[in-house]
């Protein structure tokens, strides 16, 4: 199947997908309840879209297409309330967080759907280990070439999203010392990582995708697990490195950060992206995963070493006029507080672990964060 044509979308529109954890409120382990939740949610009118994910203990929700922060947040709140209400009726807890801190991957059940069964038989235990929870943000692009430009221009900012969203310090019962342990599970897939450096859709379509398809390795864009990938049928690029935050407020803030950043990048005042930018890409990404906001970046063009936190704060300041134009100041203010002092959700979860003395307490705190508007 050849790649479908890139559908032009209204530039700078955004949409958010969240993969959420379904948890048993008794022992705080993951609960295989996706089928039951989908049944109950399917009876009413869900204010958004809700889908099954790879294993029975995950559920994925997505918003409509938005241009404004307040409208996006309002929809996320509605979706959250509907989910919590359904969870209460079924004795199922819902929470964000990139990983479940102590679930055993071999206990997970693959959701009964042909595509998931196929992936499961191909990847084996990797598929079950893929019981991790991410936030995906779509940004609408006016043209296919614009999409590829944004995709590659964003390479330098990618660690920002990892560090700001990181909420998966615990995995399989231990503190991994990573702020985002989730991404380590994603890297295990052969088609993960970065997209090839091609800036023209022509070349991407015929020079890359068609060849890959001929090898039989991939059938559609869905088979690529890239950090950012184009989504031709929506006319968007999709950022996939974020952990699902503990609150929907943070999810909305991250989406608006990306929106403002893309607005700035479309002005093309940064130096154009180059293949060599990717020399430091994996190193920077590791720094963000491992150390979160305390990571050190190497600037791809100047090769200067700079603290990730400083880079985020500087970027937020540069984005001020764009946030003003997009009316998303509140979103960027939240991220400013995170970078300037509050810390990300990974550090919040570590504090909970120290106070509660156990990984179960971590899940308990995550459930409370998701249902209430507490500041995490």
């Amino acid at each position, binding site marked *: 199947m050849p790649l479908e044509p890139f559908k032009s979308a209204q530039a700078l529109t955004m949409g958010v997908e969240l993969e959420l954890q379904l948890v*048993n*409120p*008794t*022992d*705080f*382990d993951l*609960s*295989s*309840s996706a*089928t*039951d939740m989908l*049944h*109950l949610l399917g009876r009413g009118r869900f204010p958004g879209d809700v889908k099954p994910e790879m294993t*029975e203990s995950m559920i994925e929700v997505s918003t409509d297409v938005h241009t404004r922060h307040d409208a996006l947040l309002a929809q996320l709140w509605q979706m959250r309330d509907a989910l919590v209400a*359904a969870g*209460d*009726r*079924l*004795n199922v807890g819902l929470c964000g967080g990139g990983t479940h801190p*102590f679930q*055993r991957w071999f*206990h997970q*059940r*693959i959701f*009964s759907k042909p595509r998931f069964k196929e992936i*499961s038989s191909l990847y084996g235990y990797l598929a079950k280990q893929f019981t991790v929870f991410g936030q995906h943000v779509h940004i609408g692009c006016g043209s296919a070439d614009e999409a590829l430009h944004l995709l590659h221009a964003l390479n330098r900012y990618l660690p920002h999203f990892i560090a700001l969203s990181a909420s998966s310090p615990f995995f399989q019962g231990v503190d991994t010392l990573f702020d985002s342990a989730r991404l380590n599970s994603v890297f295990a897939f052969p088609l993960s990582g970065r997209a090839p450096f091609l800036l023209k859709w022509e070349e991407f379509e015929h020079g890359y995708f068609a060849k890959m398809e001929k090898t039989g390795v991939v059938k559609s864009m869905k088979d690529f697990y890239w950090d950012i990938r184009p989504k031709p049928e929506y006319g968007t690029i999709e950022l996939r490195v974020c952990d699902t935050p503990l609150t929907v407020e943070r999810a909305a803030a991250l989406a608006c950060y990306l929106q403002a950043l893309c607005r700035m990048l479309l002005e093309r005042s940064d130096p154009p992206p180059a293949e060599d930018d990717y020399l430091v890409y994996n190193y920077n990404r590791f720094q963000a995963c491992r150390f979160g906001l305390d990571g050190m970046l190497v600037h791809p063009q100047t090769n200067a070493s700079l603290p990730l936190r400083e880079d985020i704060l500087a970027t937020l300041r540069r984005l001020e006029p764009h946030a003003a134009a997009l009316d998303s100041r509140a979103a960027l203010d939240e991220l400013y507080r995170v970078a300037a002092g509050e810390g990300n959700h990974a550090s919040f979860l570590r504090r909970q672990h120290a106070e509660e*003395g*156990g990984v*179960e*307490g971590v899940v*308990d705190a995550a459930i409370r964060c998701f249902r209430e508007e507490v500041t995490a």
Partner: protein
Amino acid sequence: MPEALINLMGQVAWPLALAVAWLAGELGHRWLALPRISSYGIAGFLLAAGQAGVLPEVRGGAMALLANVAFGLILFELGYRINLAWLRANPWLGLTSVVESACTFYAVFVVAQALGVPILPALLLSALAMSTSPAAVLRVVNEARSSGQVTERTLHLSAFNCVLALVVFKAVVGYEVLSSAGSVFQAVWNSLVVVLVSAGIGALFGVAVPGLLRLLGGLARNATVVFALAVLMLTALTDALKFSPLLAALAFGLVARHRRVVLSQVQRNFGALGDLLTVLLFVFVGATLDWRQAQAGIGLALAVVVVRLMAKTLATTLFARLSGITWRKGALTGLALTPLSAFAILLLEQSRHLKLDLLEEVAGVMAIALLLEVVGPLLTRWALVWAGETQRKEEG
């Protein structure tokens, strides 16, 4: 010499029976996909005094206390898994429980009367029939690692109907004492006071033990042993005082959970200790059954088992949609509630001090217990499998 040999056989009869039962459990699980507890019960029944005669008479004594401890651990764990907030969030669930229990009581009573059972045994039988054996349900759930709505609801409904069954049972016993001994004090003591005090002692433990754990700190490592010791103490104490160890253990778990000290995964079933005591519990329960008595009540038993299944399934199906699940899962919940044996037998066993030999008197109980010994856990297992809530083999 032969006398010494017989003596020796008597000494090792119980350990031998446990080993045989365990082996049967493993083989039955592997070859016939039987829940292990079904095989334990059958092994106990076959080896019992009334059948093969390997085991000595089991009434009373140390084994009964151990069986009570084993059951106490299971009830504690069940209580710990009950989320009372769920009843508030989903009142239909509470209603399901009440209707399910009431329907069962009524249906079984009507059938027992129709088959000529006198009123008092009929009432006791109906009270017992309300309950779903928490031991069977919890063991099957843990063995299959199932999770989902049928699993959760079966566990909750089992806990609720056991409490309801126990209260009604004690009330009937109180009424019986009143009419036979004529003492109001004794009657109230044997029903109301026993229920309230048992639950009270359990609740007290539920507050004290988590408090102690918090004082000690480092609870993740110690919690299993501490809770196990507490259940041991609670069982011995309530048994000695002639209160209800069953209700006390359930109340203990329930209160401990709502005091929020979290049990970690490893401690499901109380680990290897729980596994061992479960073998003992089901062998014990199987060994209390006597083939000759069971045979006599088989007709009644069949009728009761059928109407009980119908009543439970009807109620859980009726409220399925209203409480947020599919008709199918509602019906499967009813099916999963079939097991009965352990709870009923132990309850009768514990009423021995009343000098009413209820185990023999309550017609049909033996036969029902025997019938459901294998069928009950198997139906629970099938219900969970059909609901798609267990780990499927090809992926395990």
